[in-house]
Every structure is written in C-alpha cells, then in structure tokens.
C-alpha cells in the first residue's frame, strides 16, 4: 500500500495521459461499448426531438418496457455466449404465467404453491431444451423452434382444456395475492413517477450475470463452451452441464417475468408472448453478443433492451404518425446497430 502511494505522488503527471488512453481502450473494446454508444445516440436523439421524453416519468416508462425485454435477455445473452439460441423463451414466459395461475386455481395449492410448481416446470422445460440439444446433436435453433411451437400449442390447448376459456381466470381475489404482487409486481413511487420493481430486478440480474461471467470459474466455462466447445471439453470443462444449466437459467428468467406479468395484469391471454423471443435475442445481439457464441456481455443485453425500449416509446413521445410506427422503430434500431458496429470496429482497429 505504502509503496503504491509514494510511487503515485512521484509519477502522477507523466502517467496520467497513457492511463486515460488505456482506460478508453479498455472500455471501447468491451462487447457492450458499441451498444452504449448506440444507446447514448438514441437517447440524445429523442431528448432533442421529443420534449415529453425529457421528463423523469417518461424515463421510467422506457425503463419498464426495457425491463420486460431485459429480464429474459440477460439469460439469453449468457446462453448465446455459451453458443446456443432459445426460440422458446417468448412463449415460455406466457407458459409460466399460465401454469402458475392454473396450478393455483385448479390444483388447490394456493398462489405460492402455484408459483413454485411453475418455477419447477420452467426449469424442467429449460433442462429439456438442453437435454434434447445434447442428445440429438441438432442445432439449438431447430430444437428450440420445435419446443417453441409445442409450447405455443400447449399454452392454448391446456388452458382451454382446464379452464374452458383461452384466458386464465382473475386471481386477484385469492389469498396471498397481495404479498406475491408486492414481490413480483409492486410499484415504487419516486417524484410522482411509478417505478416498477421489475426494473430493480432487471438491474440486479444484470449485475449478478456480469459478476458470474467476469469473476467466476462458471463464467470462464460459459465463454469457453461457446467459443471452442471441443477444446473446452478437452481441458475438462463440463460442457453438457454448462449448456443445460444455461437453458435452465433462461427458464428461470422466463418464469420470473411470467410471474411479474401474472401479478401485474391478473389474467393472462394464452396466445401472448409469440415473437418476443426475437426481441430477447435482438437485445443480446445489439448489446454485443455474437450469433456464433463465445463473445458478448450481460450489460450489453441490458443496453440492447434499453435501446429497444427507448425506440418504441420515443416514437410515441415524438408523436410521429402512428401508421409509420413499426417503420420508425426498425429505422432507429438499424441506426443504433450501425453506430454500435462502427464503434466496435474503430475500437478494435485502433489497437
């Protein structure tokens, strides 16, 4: 400690400049650097063009939309770093809400029991995805496409079979609802703006995932499995366990978001969730994950989700013609991604 301090006072001025350059390069070569640039660009853009966007309340609305994409996207990013896809994540979220509600109302296990059984089911589906992948040696794109379609059908068929309707019954009058709502879907009011607890969980999950990726052995395994699966196996990385574990992690994140949706909106339409799996993957890729695996970050997936949230909400705050809505969203995403790639290329070339 002492030597460091003395050294620092001695050579502070000459070391200052190279240190900043090194720090800049360290930031710029991180996978999420491009997404950070894209996010700042989109934020500034709407800050200038859409006056209501500047308010804190608008910021929390954007964050909420981002959190509902970002919670599964954190897990999907880890899975993608591990070299796999999960196309079933969108409907798995709906499945978890439906299962929780149906278990609670039809099995008589109560809401807590429903949530726990639903968690087990979500983890089991994740494990099934991983197991099928390992056993069949098919690409995860195909395996999870199949489970996506099967889940989509099961969601509707089983809901209808059990309840006679295609939406679950309202659970808000059941005992324990208020406690679980506090856990999964409460709102904190700050400065007149409602902040959903989903945002807090999202940031916590992102921080945990970042710590695991960068500071633990498991994190190294994930990178190794996605980058060079066979070499990883050769040096003793438990490839099968890591992959199945990653799919189960996605299952967990889907369960969590599913519980949030159930307790925030009380009933669930069994046809919901289709198409969202692509948003999770897009958030991860915009955030710096490579489609080929072995590279990416959890923070990046959060930035990707944030960019998407800002874009969809920003178009409304800017009051652009609603007929053009999807076009504007697509164009803004393209712009953010181009800036993102440009920054990444410059950073790596600049070495």
């Amino acid at each position, binding site marked *: 400690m002492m030597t460091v301090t003395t050294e620092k006072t001695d050579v502070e001025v000459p070391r200052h400049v190279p240190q900043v350059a090194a720090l800049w390069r360290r930031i710029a070569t991180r996978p999420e650097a491009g997404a950070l640039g894209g996010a700042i660009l989109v934020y500034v853009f709407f800050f200038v063009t859409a006056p209501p966007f500047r308010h804190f309340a608008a910021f929390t609305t954007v964050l*909420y939309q981002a959190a*509902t994409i970002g919670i599964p996207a954190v897990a999907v990013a880890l899975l993608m770093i591990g070299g796999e896809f999960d196309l079933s994540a969108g409907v798995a979220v709906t499945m978890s809400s439906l299962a929780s509600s149906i278990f609670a109302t039809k099995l008589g296990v109560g809401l807590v029991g429903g949530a726990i059984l639903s968690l087990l089911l979500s983890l089991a589906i994740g494990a099934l995805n991983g197991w099928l992948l390992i056993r069949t040696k098919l690409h995860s794109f195909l395996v999870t496409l199949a489970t996506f379609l099967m889940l989509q059908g099961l969601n509707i068929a089983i809901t209808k079979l059990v309840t006679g309707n295609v939406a679950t019954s*309202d659970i808000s009058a059941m005992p324990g609802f208020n406690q679980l709502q506090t856990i999964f879907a409460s*709102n904190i009011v700050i400065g007149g703006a409602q902040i959903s607890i989903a945002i807090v969980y999202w940031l916590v999950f992102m921080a945990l995932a970042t710590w695991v990726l960068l500071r633990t052995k498991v994190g190294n395994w994930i990178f190794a499995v996605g980058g060079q699966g066979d070499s990883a196996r050769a040096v003793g990385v438990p490839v099968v366990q890591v992959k199945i574990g990653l799919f189960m992690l996605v299952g967990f994140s889907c369960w969590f978001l599913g519980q949030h949706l159930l307790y925030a909106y009380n009933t669930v339409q069994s046809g919901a969730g289709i*198409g969202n799996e692509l948003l999770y993957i897009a958030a991860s890729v915009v955030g710096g994950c490579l489609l080929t695996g072995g590279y990416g970050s959890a923070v990046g997936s959060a930035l990707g989700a944030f960019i998407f949230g800002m874009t969809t909400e920003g178009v409304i705050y800017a009051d652009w013609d609603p007929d053009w809505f999807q076009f504007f969203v697509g164009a803004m995403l393209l712009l953010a991604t181009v800036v993102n790639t440009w920054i990444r290329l410059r950073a790596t070339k600049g070495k």
Partner: protein
Amino acid sequence: MNVTKFSKIAIACASASVGAILAMSGHAVAASKPLTFAMITHAQPGDTFWDIIRKGANAAAAKDNVKLIYLADPTADKEAQLIDNVVQQHVDGIALTLAFPQAMEKNVKEAEAAGIPIVGFNAGGDDWKKAGLLMYVGQDETIAGKAVGDKLNAEGAKSVLCVDQQQGAVQLEERCNGIKATFKGKYQILYTTGYDMPTVKSRVQAKLQQDPSIDYVVTLGAPFAPSVLGAISAAGGKAKLGTFDLTPEAVNLIKAGKLQWAIDQQPYVEGYEAVDLLWLNKTNGDVVGGGGPLLTGPAFVTKANVAEVAKFAKAGTR
C-alpha cells in the same frame, strides 16, 4: 450408440404425435355423416373474444348436427389460403370473417365457383356484398364506432385516444372511422402489437405522458382494458376508459366503476348464427337479412345493466 438413442427419441416423438392426432380426431367422427361446415377467422390464437365466437359456433353445430372445421390465422394471405384449404376438403358451407377483403377476394370467388355457400360474420360489413357472400351476421362496425363517438360527445370528452391492437384489420379501422365521424373533439390513434401487455401498458402510458390533454381512452378489444387502466393511473390518472367487446374482467371493471362502458357485439350470437344460417341455407334454401346484414350489436353495457350480463360473461358466453 448415439444413433440408437436418437432413433428412440424420434420414435417416441412420432408415436406421441400419432397418439395426439388420434386423440384429436376421436371425438369429431362420431355421428352419421352430417353436413360439414368450415369456419375461418382472422383470430389471434388464444384470444378470449374469438373463443366466445367459437363456443357459439360449436353450440349451433351441435344443435344442427353439423361437423364444424374451425381454422384461424391473423394474417391476410394465410387466412385467404385457409379458404383454398377447405374448398379442397369439399366442405358444404363456409362461414368466414372478411377481415382482409382484397387479399381474400380471389379465394372467395373460387369457393363460390365451386358452389359452396359462404356466410360472412364479424368482419367485412362494408365488403360482404361486393365479395358475393350470401349473408352477413355481425355488428356494423362503422355504426358501432359512430355510437361510441356520440357516447363520447354526450359524456363531454374533449380528446380521445383509440388503442388499436391489430394495425390494418378493416373492422378495427371501421370502428375508428366511425368514432372519427361523429366525435367532435380531438381524435388520435395508437397501435399496439397483440397481447404483449407490458407493451400495451407502456405505449399507452407514453402516449398519455406525451399528450396530457387526452381525457378518454377507447380500447378496440376488451382484454386490453385492464392494462390500459394501469397505464392511465401510472401516467397521472384522469382519463376515462371505454372498450369495444366484453370479457369477464371488463364486466367486473364496469361493476367497480373503473371502466365506463363496453360496447357489446354479442360474439356468441355471431358464431352461432353464422353456422345456423349456413344450415338453413343448405337444408331449406333460406337467405336471411333481406339483402342487409343481420345485426348483433352495438349495445352498450354500463353500470346500469351490467348485472344481467355478468352471469353469462362468467360462463364465457358473453
């Protein structure tokens, strides 16, 4: 080793799906060769509203001893393809929602050329005659929209936001145009994407923050009403809410005074009558409606009359 395991899985999957197919077809082949009708809709899968339509259709099919094939797809070209599909199955009649009249025109003509009677329902109130359909049962969406516009005027609304969950579907556009035609204040539309409730909530919330003058929101589907209520309260909460169609939750919200009204087109009747009209036509050559549509709505459900509707809504038929 892996090959055997793989083939075991393959066999297991195959036998499971064969079992599923057998199970599905099992109950349909019961009675003695009755008429076969097809019902084709633009429903999003897993939507409460369409489920009520289907319940009505099934009730009529059971009563008339008709075999009913139900097919749905929310996109224009796929719904059109479904018509070809059932024509190839040589069905005895088709009940369809004319949600995408242009895209479906050619396929409808082919079905008509094959001598299959077609009854329209739910969507296409402005186009069914042009397309050559025999009859039409449903709510005239423009009339319903106009009724909503009048209602908004009567309640003193100044600025209304219309929340449309399926951009480009004609019956939703007709509702909006109807509102626009009679409503005297400022009118705006917001598109959302299907059943993703956080998206619905945050988009409506953003719109209300963007334009605080909005004092009335109208959702074009009842499942969205609770989410929009959440958005209204999150955005500061002074706008009132009305909705097209009914769900059990909407009924409860009307009872609680949180939802001002719902405009009911009686989807159960639409499904029921569409099948029954085909049956009357096939068995007795009847054409009902006198050249006009058979109207099932609009009727307002408000706090004043919600109690009598509630018990049927709970059973999932209103």
